[in-house]
Every structure is written in C-alpha cells, then in structure tokens.
C-alpha cells in the first residue's frame, strides 16, 4: 500500500512559509505523489510559490487573524480530512502546530506521535522514529488505527529542499466562526533580534547556569559577537529570567545544527542535548570533569568559564 496523499502543516513566519513547515513539506513530497500544504497565515503569491517549490501540489489556505487559531483550525482541518482523506499529516514540534495537532487528534479520535525525528513508509505500513534518553535510543512506533495518522516532527529532522517549480492550486478555506471569548490574541510582543538567528547560524555559543549570574551572560554575547555567532541558553537560565526564552536550545527550545557549537557552563542534560547534539563540532567548557556535556564534545575544556572565555574573546579580537 503506497501513500496517496500526505499533508504538511505550514505556519507563516514573517510573511513567508516557516522553515519547519517547508521541511515537512519536502518530506511529504518524498513520501507521496500528492503532497499538499495546510498553510496558516495571511498568504501571498510568493508564499504559495514557495510552497509549490517545496512540493505542494495544492495549498489549503487558512487565515485565523486575531482569533486563537488552534480550535477553529483543527475544526477546519477535520472537515478537509472528511473531503480529501489524506493518509498522513505532518506537524512541526512548535507551539501552534502542537496545539492544532493535539486538538485535531482529540477531535478525530486518532492517536498522535510527537517528537518524531523520522517517518518512513514500507510494506508493513508507516513507521515513526523517536529519540529517547537524550538521543541515545531510537524508538520505532507504528500506527494500528485508521488514517489519517498524525505525527509531530522535531525541527531540522529533514532538510527543506526546493525541487519543483510548479504553481500549486490554492484553496481558500473558511474557518468556522469562533466566539472571541473562546480565545483571542490581544497583542503580540516581538523581542529585538540582532545578529544571526539561532536556527541558521554557522556558530552558536550557549551559556548555562555555570555562568553564575545574569550579568555574566554578557560573556556569551561578547564571544558570539567576536565569532559572528548566535547566542543561546539552557532552560535553567531562561527560567531564572537571565535571558529571553527565544534563546533556549533543547527539547522545548530550538534545535540547532551549526558547524560549531560552544557550550559554556552547561551541564549537558538530556533535554539540552537533543537540541544540539547533531552540531558538526561541539566545544564544551565546564569546571566539572564529569559533566555529561563532555560525552558529546569534540573538544572538552575542564576549566572556569570566567577564565577561559575572556581569554578566548581577547585572542579572537587580536586576529
């Protein structure tokens, strides 16, 4: 049994399809002849063309506006499923995707597998791969119920590759009327973003609780600046309010795969490792020789961040 139609949920990000969604769409096009996108956002010809280029034959366009999207979007997708019967729907491990996938799963009574890193299809059906225990073990799961199968995939599990130049058919889907009391977005706050972004930087410098204080995070910023790198953080220091959440790397933060990842004062907890262990080269600076981060580091420096990092910044400055 081959897959006939696979859908990818693609969220708009700053006017264009988000990278995670394009990764899913690329994968959908590899799994089935009929790859189609569910696109959530304002939409534009350029956006639809980008979806077509990544394999979408058809785009179902939904725009939620100020309404909290998850409930009406899940309801609309449930209707589309009735009409079009896809085999599989791929969502990304991100906020709105998770909300929609969760609600849709409950609505359809279909199981959902989240945190997937791979999806494959063979003679014995669809297999979803998950990583557990910080990525040291792989778990394969199979669906036993009826399609459509719902899978939530971690970022950067597949590359986003434009292949096709075709213009997709765009179907505008009206959302069911939602009562504002059922959830509305009153206002959006965006943090200032400067320098390279975590997800696409060639070098990432991350600080953890080992820095000792919020002020000491400046060391990480300075090192990142000297390297043209993006600065990241562990959840421990995000939760402590030292840096904004947008910097968090790990299971519940961003997934990064830079050429070089430098972790300073980071212990290397499982939930941190899953977000960075696929970096090409990992450098760790930690004063505890037993810190788990050394288990994945190509170069581990047993030392004090307050000694090593300032010297490193200085040496880079002199070049």
């Amino acid at each position, binding site marked *: 049994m081959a897959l006939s139609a696979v859908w990818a949920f693609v969220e708009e990000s700053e006017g264009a399809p988000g990278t995670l969604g394009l990764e899913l769409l690329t994968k959908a096009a590899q799994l089935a002849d009929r790859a189609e996108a569910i696109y959530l956002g304002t939409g534009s010809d350029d956006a639809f063309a980008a979806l077509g280029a990544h394999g979408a034959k058809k785009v179902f366009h939904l725009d939620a506006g100020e309404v909290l999207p998850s409930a009406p979007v899940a309801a609309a997708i449930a209707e589309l499923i009735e009409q079009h019967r896809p085999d599989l729907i791929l969502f990304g491990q991100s906020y709105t995707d998770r909300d929609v996938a969760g609600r849709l799963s409950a609505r359809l009574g279909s199981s959902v597998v989240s945190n997937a890193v791979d999806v494959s299809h063979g003679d014995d059906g669809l297999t979803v791969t998950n990583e557990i225990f910080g990525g040291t073990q792989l778990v394969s799961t199979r669906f*036993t119920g009826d399609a459509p199968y719902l899978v939530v995939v971690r970022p950067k599990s597949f590359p986003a590759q434009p292949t096709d130049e075709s213009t997709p058919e765009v179907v505008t889907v009206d959302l069911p009327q939602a009562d504002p009391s059922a959830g509305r977005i009153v206002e959006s706050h965006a943090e200032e973003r400067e320098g390279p972004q975590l997800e696409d930087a060639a070098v990432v410098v991350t600080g953890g609780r080992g820095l000792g204080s919020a002020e000491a995070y400046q060391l990480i910023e300075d090192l990142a600046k000297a390297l043209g790198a993006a600065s990241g953080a562990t959840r421990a220091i995000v939760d402590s309010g030292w840096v904004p959440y947008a910097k968090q790397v790990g299971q519940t933060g961003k997934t990064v795969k830079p050429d070089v990842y430098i972790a300073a004062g980071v212990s290397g907890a499982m939930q941190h490792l899953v977000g960075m262990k696929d970096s090409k080269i990992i450098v760790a600076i930690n004063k505890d020789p037993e810190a788990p981060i050394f288990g994945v580091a190509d170069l581990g420096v047993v030392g004090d961040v307050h000694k090593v990092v300032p010297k490193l910044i200085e040496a880079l400055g002199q070049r």
Partner: protein
Amino acid sequence: MQVVVCVKQIPDPASPSKLDPDTHLMVRPNDQVLDDTDRYGVEMGLQVAAATEGTLTLLSMGPAGSLQGIRQALAMGADKAVVIDDEALKGADALTTARVLAAAAQREGFDLLIAGTESTDGYSGVVPQQIAELLDVPALTYANHVEVEGSTVRIHRQTDRGYDLVEASTPALVSVTAGVVEPRYPTFKGIMDAKKKPIDQLAAADLDAEIDVDQQVVEVSPAPERQAGEKIEDGGDAHLRIVELLERAKVI
C-alpha cells in the same frame, strides 16, 4: 474559582530509567515522585485559588504507587486529589491519557484547568490540548504569565519571537511553562496536613473514558553514538586550542 491541576507522578529522574526490552514500556519503580514540571502548575493553581477564594483539586493518572508525588502536591496546599490507576491504562498513549483526565475533570467540575506544557518522562506535549478539545474549552497554552480577572483568563503565550497576550473566558485550560511562578516548598504543617487530605482513587470504569491505543512501539534500538573527542584541563591556555579548532573548522 474551582481550579483543577493535572499532575503526573513519575519515576524519580535521579534514578536511571529504562525500557522493558519485551514490552517496550517504561519500567517504573514504586518510589514515584511529583513531576518537577508540575510544581509550577500547582503553584499557579494555588495562587489563583487563593485570589478567588476557590479550591484546588489535583488530577493524576497512572500507577498510584505510594502516592508520594500526590502528597508532595497536597503538602504544597492543594485541597484534594483524584487518582486514576488502572491496569487497563498501562501503556496509555497521549489521547487515552487525555480522555481519562478530561472525564475526571468533568466529573469534578472546574472553572480553570491547569496542566504543564510537557511532562518530564512522556513529553508528548499534546495532552493539555487534547483535554481542551474533548471538553470543548479554550486552551491558553505555553503560559509564562497568568492573570485571572473575573471570568477572564489572560496569559503571555510564548512564541518564537517573544510572546502574545492572549485571553479567553472560563471555563478554560491553561498550560504553564516552568518559570511561570516560583513554586513554594511544603511547610512542616503542610506535610502533616497532607496526610489527612482526601485522595479519591478511581478505576477507568468509574469514568466511562474510551481506552483505545492506536499506536504500538515495535522496536527500540541504540542510536548511532557520537564519539567524545579530547578532554583537556585548562592550565591557562586552553583558549588557544579552541582558536585552533575554530580555524580548522573554517569559521574564523
């Protein structure tokens, strides 16, 4: 306001976890503890209950064990707990878990239902949204700030860029991130009082929730291992080795 908080008991993360090679299920020691992530939901719930002169009920599904984790949350100040423990729920997926919790929440009644954004051991991260859909209530998710004013719940919902201010009317579900509030430590009196608080233990049949798991783990295998490289002691010039490596990687 009637506040209900979903909390999970999990094997102590300090003791190494493993999967049963035959059943592919998590091997759970009996010394279960409160999922650390759920302390934030409990604290949030206590604050809302106190501000609205309401009550706080805990909901938990899973092996009850010695109920140590539930007592931890009761000791923080929750009024009572409902625990659903049933052999039939072994290996429950997220949707089955959500069905059971939704049925229990409905049975208790609530204005505000609180959950964590993801559990430490399961981290499906979809149970709260599934519960909200089953109960047809708004889900205000990934909250790192929560305010309740009359029947309006207003949160800061984390986004990739910052946060959205989002609001809805009760009854509603809120999923909270670690860091939303600072959880209190149980006092001695809290611990003593917790011993007398009611814990309602239910079976799946008491709730009329559908148990139907549509997914099956077929294999668990070791992932390709990343080899650790060199580890050096900083004697004052370790930074030079880092520079060397950066040069070789051609990023400087």
